[in-house]
């Protein structure tokens, strides 16, 4: 089973991202499960979501404590949330950041990938510079950096599930797929 944890802010679409990722893997005939951390967070507050992907039905419904991947939608969260908590040995953190992976300091024992999802999103008209909607972009990057889900499946899933601007979201994912660094 592959376990992915998302960190974002209320209103940024982390939960939608976790669902789109699950749906993409599902298109590849995987069994999936995704869910938010169950809180009462308001817009702006840090939030967490999870996706599990497996070859067989997933019966375990408990929270993910040892993720294989961590996806951070908003780099400013790194300062306030322990994003790598429990991350598996040799796991990967994917950050929305202008920086290069090698410039990110998060500790040892895992891989780092980065993509400037904000730039990509804004370029595709997804939100504004101060409130970009980066979830599709970062998923595109995840596809490439992790290799866990095909960008085609992701695209299909975005086209189906994005709450609005389907094409723009799909395009952003494709662009971020190309731009991710790891």
């Amino acid at each position, binding site marked *: 089973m592959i376990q992915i944890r998302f960190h974002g*802010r209320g209103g940024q679409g982390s939960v939608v991202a976790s669902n789109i990722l699950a749906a993409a893997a599902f298109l590849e005939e995987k069994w999936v499960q995704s869910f938010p951390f169950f809180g009462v967070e308001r817009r*702006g*507050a*840090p939030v967490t979501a999870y996706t599990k992907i497996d070859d067989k039905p997933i019966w375990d419904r408990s929270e993910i404590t040892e993720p294989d991947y961590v996806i951070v939608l*908003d780099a*400013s969260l790194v*300062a*306030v949330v322990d994003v790598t908590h429990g991350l598996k040995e040799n796991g990967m953190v994917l950050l929305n950041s202008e920086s290069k992976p090698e410039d990110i300091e998060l500790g040892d024992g895992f891989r780092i990938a980065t993509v400037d999802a904000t730039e990509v999103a804004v370029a595709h008209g997804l939100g504004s*510079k*101060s*409130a970009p909607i980066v979830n599709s972009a970062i998923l595109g990057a995840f596809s490439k950096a992790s290799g866990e889900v095909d960008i085609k499946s992701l695209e299909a899933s975005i086209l189906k599930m994005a709450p609005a601007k389907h094409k723009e979201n799909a395009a952003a994912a494709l662009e971020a797929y190309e731009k991710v660094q790891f």
Partner: protein
Amino acid sequence: MAKSVEDLPYIPLMSESSAVNKTGVWRVIRPIVNQEECNQCYTCWKFCPDVAIQIDEEGNILIDYDHCKGCGICEAVCPKNCIEMVKEE
């Protein structure tokens, strides 16, 4: 931190100020006051929903960045346009 049953009161009473919630971490844009231009009208203070603007002894406006969420209301209401919202790093 989670407390054990012996350390909890018999009812979940609220005895601590919500000020311990450092809601400043929610902020993605930060208000910066230009104290020079401020005329101390306190319009910003009046309308801050997060009680994150204080008036110091000299009557100056102080932003409590531990709690300011960066809503931008203070900027919007300031008659002197002396608050600027800048992106957090």
